[in-house]
């Protein structure tokens, strides 16, 4: 390969064939509808006619979810973002269960933005709310059943037999008298048949694929370096691809006052400088040239002197003051004032910092603006809103903007921004430079990028009567609304209550006779966003540590105390009991260690965890976590186990280390040295036990996060007698 012809400003000359030559643009073609074989078209539900926002020019419409090749290969279009949670495996499993194909022939591709790929509950294409499998459950099994019906009919037609006399087995159609045809052989004929309107789905007792531990389809390319993330696009994928780095204001809400790009003139490899009110982008032929250019830029920024400068210490003080005053009532049961009559009561204030998502792959977005159309490549959780936002910036109708979904190196909510921040920015740059451009945020840009889990303060007054029963619980939450001012406000804010601020408290399963949850929503000063498990990140901590305090006040065992309040919630009760049983609750912990428990319901599932903790030289060490999860019917046990481990690691990382602080409007953290995250040597051994018997899947990706911090805090109390009321934890 001759690198000198690659038009790189900083090329490498006369190299030998150092690298295997990849098939040119293979990646880009992968999502196109292929000629040959059969394309089966399904449009479920009845929302839309087209998957790719382009007219169907063929008799057979472009395929939304499933393509069966003449060679018998089965390719499933995955409508959700793959960012670790395993949808490239679990969603094809739903199709394969009904299709009856050979699993080893199943391939998985991420679908581009397309109306047919709308979330069946939310009406737009998106990934969030631990709902990818949940909302695809009926849809993709139906796709598989319809395709199977058509393939069988095609074979029956060819054999001139009744379809009822045929069966499907492992990618083959079996007919009377030992007749046999592969899926590929009848794919063309099947495509010409009408899509059956009604199909009968298998009962769970007949499942062969669903429920079977299944290794990830995307794993091989992720262990050999071939997997292509958004960050990995090169000129091989998109000819003439440029790279942009962006200089942002150091303070939130800063605006560009002036800039001096003189020093860039002497630097090689820089092709454009794009100036906007909020940023300056330096565009070059490679990351390093763009980075050196950005570092050489001199810019002055302006902030409205009358506007408040977000300062986390001040906000904490203000939230604390507000928490002591009455808030807007989100939920009231009985007479919460009866807490004043409690024999023993606790008044506690809790505080939670801003948190960054800090996914491994820094944010990036590639855009090719062609004047009358555009193409984007981005690891998006929000394909529909991102496509719309891009179209608006580029002055194009949305159907002229093709958004290719790239696998993403994590996301945790950061790639689901209702205002599409980094995508809008990339489109603004692409529109100016008119060459394909990959906009890369560095780790520092990502960390200081201004969308955080908001900070919260909770104040709770709760107590028990002389008999050890809860007398009252008065709870006040103070924190910014995540969705205020976004398109989601109408959906998630009702009567002035942002549900994402109170979820997990207002709907607590505990039977508390005199209970109140109030909310105060201060003015939004810091741009904020959902973060894995959203409101439950803080509400579970307060509920589960305060319940533990009341158990102690009642001199009751923490598990027995909880059980006495859960009679009306058998799922929660059962999950709690499973975690307690598997952890050896009630038996002595190993020397120097103590156990703490927490249980919490979120995203339709229940997760209970027992953490085994020691405190050594002022450091909290979590040795082991025994988790029980009721996530309904389990599709892929291997993925579910992985997601619970993942959710625990993510929650523990925040509980032990996570804090974004602001001073004078400037985020003080920038990289993993001052925003430390959980490392392998801090990871507890996690055991996962699943509650059997579910009829349908419920959420998996997030429900493991909420219980870990309170489980650890309760263990710290058991060990030290000190209550943890501030995160990240300090002892």
């Amino acid at each position, binding site marked *: 390969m001759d690198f000198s012809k*690659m038009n790189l400003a*900083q090329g490498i000359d006369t190299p030998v064939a150092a690298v295997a030559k990849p098939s040119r643009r293979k990646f880009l073609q992968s999502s196109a509808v292929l000629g040959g074989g059969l394309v089966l078209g399904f449009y479920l539900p009845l929302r839309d006619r087209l998957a790719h926002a382009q007219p169907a020019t063929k008799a057979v419409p472009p395929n939304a979810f499933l393509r069966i090749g003449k060679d018998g290969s089965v390719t499933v279009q995955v409508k959700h973002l793959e960012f670790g949670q395993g949808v490239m495996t679990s969603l094809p499993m739903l199709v394969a269960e009904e299709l009856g194909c050979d699993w080893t022939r199943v391939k998985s591709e991420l679908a581009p933005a397309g109306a047919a790929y709308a979330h069946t509950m939310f009406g737009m294409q998106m990934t969030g709310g631990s709902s990818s499998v949940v909302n695809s459950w009926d849809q993709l099994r139906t796709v598989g059943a319809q395709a199977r019906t058509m393939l069988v009919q095609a074979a029956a037609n060819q054999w001139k037999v009744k379809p009822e006399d045929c069966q499907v087995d492992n990618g083959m159609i079996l007919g009377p008298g030992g007749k046999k045809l592969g899926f590929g052989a009848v794919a063309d004929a099947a495509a010409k048949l009408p899509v059956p309107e009604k199909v009968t789905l298998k009962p769970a007792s007949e499942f062969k694929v669903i429920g079977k*531990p299944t290794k990830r389809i995307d794993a091989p390319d992720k*262990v050999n370096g071939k997997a292509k993330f958004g960050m990995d696009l090169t000129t091989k994928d998109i000819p003439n691809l440029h790279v942009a780095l962006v200089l942002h204001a150091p303070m939130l809400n800063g605006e560009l006052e002036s800039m001096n790009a003189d020093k860039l003139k002497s630097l090689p490899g820089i092709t454009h400088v794009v100036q906007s009110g909020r940023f300056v982008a330096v565009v070059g032929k*490679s990351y*390093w040239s763009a980075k050196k250019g950005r570092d050489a830029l001199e810019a002055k920024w302006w902030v409205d002197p009358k506007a408040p400068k977000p300062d986390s210490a001040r906000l904490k003080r203000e939230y604390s003051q507000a928490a002591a005053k009455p808030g807007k009532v989100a939920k009231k049961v009985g007479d919460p004032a009866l807490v004043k009559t409690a024999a023993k009561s606790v008044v506690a204030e809790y505080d939670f910092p801003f948190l960054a998502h800090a*996914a491994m792959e*820094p944010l990036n977005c590639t855009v090719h603006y062609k004047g009358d159309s555009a193409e984007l490549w981005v690891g998006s959780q929000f394909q529909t809103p991102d496509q719309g936002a891009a179209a608006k910036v580029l002055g194009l109708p949305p159907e002229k903007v093709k958004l290719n979904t790239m696998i993403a190196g994590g996301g945790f909510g950061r790639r689901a921004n209702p205002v599409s921040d980094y995508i809008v920015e990339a489109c603004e740059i692409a529109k100016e430079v008119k060459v394909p451009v990959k906009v890369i945020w560095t*780790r520092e840009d990502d960390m200081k990028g201004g969308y955080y889990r908001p900070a919260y303060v909770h104040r709770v007054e709760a107590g028990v009567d002389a008999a050890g029963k809860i007398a009252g619980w008065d709870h006040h939450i103070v924190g910014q609304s995540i969705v205020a001012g976004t398109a989601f406000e109408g959906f998630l804010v009702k009567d002035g209550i942002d549900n994402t601020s109170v979820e997990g408290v207002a709907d607590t399963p505990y039977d508390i006779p005199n209970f109140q949850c109030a909310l105060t929503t201060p003015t939004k000063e810091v741009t904020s966003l959902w973060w894995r498990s959203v409101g439950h990140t803080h509400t579970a901590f307060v509920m589960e540590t305060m319940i533990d305090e009341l158990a102690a006040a009642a001199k009751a065992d923490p598990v027995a105390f909880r059980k006495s309040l859960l009679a009306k919630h058998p799922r929660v009760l059962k999950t709690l009991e499973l975690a307690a049983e598997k952890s050896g609750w009630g038996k002595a912990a190993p020397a120097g260690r103590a156990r703490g428990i927490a249980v919490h319901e979120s995203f339709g599932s229940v997760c209970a965890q027992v953490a085994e903790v020691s405190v050594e030289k002022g450091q909290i060490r979590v040795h082991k976590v025994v988790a029980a999860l009721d996530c309904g019917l389990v599709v892929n046990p291997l993925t579910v186990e992985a997601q619970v481990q993942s959710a625990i690691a993510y929650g523990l990382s925040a509980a032990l280390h996570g804090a974004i602080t602001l001073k004078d409007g400037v985020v003080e953290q920038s990289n993993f040295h001052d925003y430390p995250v959980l490392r392998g040597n801090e990871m507890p051994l996690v055991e996962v036990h699943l509650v059997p018997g579910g009829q349908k899947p419920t959420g998996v990706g997030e429900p493991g996060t909420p219980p870990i911090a309170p489980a650890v805090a309760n263990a710290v109390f058991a060990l030290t007698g000190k209550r943890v009321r501030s995160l990240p934890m300090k002892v």
Partner: protein
Amino acid sequence: MIRFKVNGEPIQASIDPETPLLWVLRDNLQLTGTKFGCGMALCGACTVHLDGQPIRSCSTPVSACAGKNVTTIEKIGASAVGKRVQQAWLDADVVQCGYCQSGQIMSAVALLNTNKNPSDADIDAAMSGNICRCGTYNRVKQAIKMAASPSAAAPAAAPAKAAPSKAPAKQGA
């Protein structure tokens, strides 16, 4: 002119000698399996081998590679240990988002090249420079043990204490 080798193949680079090796690999050689995570040698996503030693390529100027051989994730499977580690990663179903896994594997191979039977503490010490935000650490440890002694560790498909496989399969029955 800087002369060095990448995956055994000679390279001659007329390039700013300060350019981090990471960006020479990713932008110039288009070997994008080595990832950009932090740019400050804090996360390990960019780990490659320089004459067999694990290094953070984001913070290694290309000039430091002169006369040496760089091995990346794309070719680590050519060695017996590398192949075994990659296979163990599949057997233990380690990956989630996958972004950090090239670096994890490069660090794991470097560990096993010098320590054929690492203890938990050895693994913690060798791997703590590699951050995984998906929290695959349990399976990373399991896979390293499987690669060290392929018959000793149970594959993830039958996790001893987790996700009892028979329970979910029979749900709803």
